[in-house]
């Protein structure tokens, strides 16, 4: 039985379709992150699960129970809001106990849970304070505490870390993850920050224009994007996407005569390469490119190389330090290749035959020799 199931759930505002027949099933104990650009429908999705919005069509099931027509309070969910939504007139303790009091939990159990939760989140010394007297990080903890104090098995989080500074955000990510594991919670977490999504989630749902583009583990998402959108969206810098054309001897990079060894036709397909999978070759094999920009990052450097009308991003060891305007050859292994259908944007089956010219066997760490 799944913890959260959405069956062709649609919701539109006027003529804007926020979620378009979305189907999704999340197993219990998963930390699922919904990721997408702003306006993609991810927050609507979360609000639909919470019951704060009613779907126009489709069913929502939580732990086997159809909750589509139930109000938020009967869905047995915890929720952390982006703005924390702490009650400003109530103390930390009253905020935490708000739901338990409503559900008429016995007093001694309330006291016990309050003690456990405040210890867990380090809020013992703050229980009598009002939210305005807390720092952002402390408010965040109270919001989290309010969501988990009732022992809810499913917790929804709407960009819970977006108002924290970078350092605190990092710490909280780790903490959220261990907390979710310790309590065996199912988490549905919305964010627009891909580093956060890949770092915290064990299942990532990519949304775009109200539809789900891909549901996968972070590594699968990164290594095998199922669509051009995902390929472009995930990764910093994102995957280089080179439209292919047909040359006299087979597929070439569109707008250039440079051959890539991929079986089948070139036209209508797009070649995708992760920057760190592209290497500067030493033996003269590969695609000719000219360094147009370089960003030195210490351990490595990201270079943007011009190949005909296209720019190819490559992550090279920092000590190589290619110079601007330098001409070099780029190569990649067969496993690095992602192929997409240019028209549909969908992923195509991996190429079967390796390309001997591009499959460089001999590489030297320095690129100075490749300079022409």
């Amino acid at each position, binding site marked *: 039985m799944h913890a959260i199931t959405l069956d062709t759930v649609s919701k539109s505002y006027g003529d804007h379709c926020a979620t378009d027949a979305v189907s999704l099933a999340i197993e219990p104990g998963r930390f699922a992150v919904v990721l997408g650009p702003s306006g993609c429908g991810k927050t609507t999705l979360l609000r639909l699960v919470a019951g704060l919005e009613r779907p126009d069509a489709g069913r929502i099931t939580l732990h086997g129970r159809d909750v589509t027509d139930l109000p938020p309070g009967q869905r047995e969910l915890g*929720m952390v809001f982006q703005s924390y939504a702490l009650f400003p007139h109530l103390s930390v303790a009253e905020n935490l106990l708000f739901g338990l009091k409503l559900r008429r939990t016995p007093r001694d159990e309330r006291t016990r849970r309050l003690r456990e939760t405040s210890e867990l989140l380090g809020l013992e010394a703050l229980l009598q304070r009002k939210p305005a007297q807390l720092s952002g990080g402390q408010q965040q903890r109270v919001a989290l505490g309010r969501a988990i104090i009732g022992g809810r098995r499913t917790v929804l989080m709407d960009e819970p870390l977006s108002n924290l500074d970078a350092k605190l955000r990092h710490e909280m990510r780790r903490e959220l993850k261990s907390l979710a594991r310790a309590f065996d919670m199912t988490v549905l977490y919305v964010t627009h920050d891909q580093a956060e999504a890949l770092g915290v989630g064990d299942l990532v749902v990519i949304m775009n224009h109200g539809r789900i583009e891909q549901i996968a583990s972070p590594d699968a998402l990164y290594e095998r994007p199922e669509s051009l959108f995902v390929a472009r969206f995930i990764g910093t810098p994102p995957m280089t996407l080179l439209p292919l054309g047909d040359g006299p001897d087979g597929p070439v990079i569109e707008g250039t005569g440079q051959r890539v060894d991929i079986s089948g036709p070139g036209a209508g397909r797009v070649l995708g390469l992760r920057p760190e999978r592209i290497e500067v070759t030493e033996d003269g094999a590969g695609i000719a490119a000219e360094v147009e920009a370089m960003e030195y990052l210490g351990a490595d450097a990201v270079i943007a190389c011009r190949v005909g009308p296209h720019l190819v991003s490559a992550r090279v060891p920092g000590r190589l330090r290619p110079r601007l305007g330098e001409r070099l050859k780029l190569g990649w292994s067969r496993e690095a290749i992602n192929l997409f259908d240019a028209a549909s944007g969908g992923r195509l089956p991996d190429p079967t035959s390796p390309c001997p010219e591009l499959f460089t066997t001999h590489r030297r760490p320095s690129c100075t020799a490749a300079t022409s």
Partner: protein
Amino acid sequence: MAVIAPTLPRVRAFRLGDHVVAWALIAPALLFLVVFTLYPAAATLVQSLYSTPLAHRPSHFIGLAHFRQMIADPTFREVLANNLLYAAGSIPLSVALALAMALLVDARIPGRGFARMAYFTPTVLPLIAAANIWLFFYTPGYGLLDQLLNRLGLPGVNWLGEPATALWAVTMVAIWKQAGFFMIFYLAALQQIPPSLREAAAVEGASRWHSFRRVTLPLLGPTTLFVLVNAVIGAFSLVDSLFVLTQGGPDNASNLLLYYIYQTAFQYWDGGYAAALTVVLVAILALAALAQFLFIGRRTHYR
């Protein structure tokens, strides 16, 4: 000493100049405050202790005689009782109505803009015009209310002419007029409350009533205090609709404090007694405001 001495005159000169500038800056405001507030207040207090000057007998000090007269004055007692009844009726009803209307037009309902305008219209209408409309409603025989009663086969009522109904008829007009005004404050306060608070309460299982009771209402506390203070002041300073509707009649049945003060001062020309009545009115208002700040203000959450 030798080190400090040379700097001393300079410091003193600076302070003097500072004071001059400060006094010069507050002078215009202070002038108006003194001429229009402090002096009249002090003059009223003094006047209340002196007899009203008559043609053959100039004003002289009589101490608390006016206040003793007040205690024995049956009209004053009736007017005060009327005013307390009027306050007890108009304040809770107009504030509750204001809150209800604000909640209604804050929600996502069709025609929200129109409803807001409709609720606010009585406040914008000049009171004399509004009172005239109500005068028509209350007119015996062919007024709106009597026409409705006649349709139902009931006898008409002389709403403003009967001692039993006159005060309540006046109260109705005041509620109708005030509620829209108070609604604006509640509406503004409601829009300051982030919707996520109500959503958080809903996720925790709060019913609408509980969410209103535990979240919305406490957050409206400062507004309620402000509105209540205004309502109390309004309840004890109603005078304009009485001019149009009842002139305090019949037989003082709808007479209120401020109107009685007006009558005493400008119809009976008893300035000294009017001054004493004014002192009592101001004292009542001051006590009421103080009590509100102490009892409600202490429990109010200010953001």
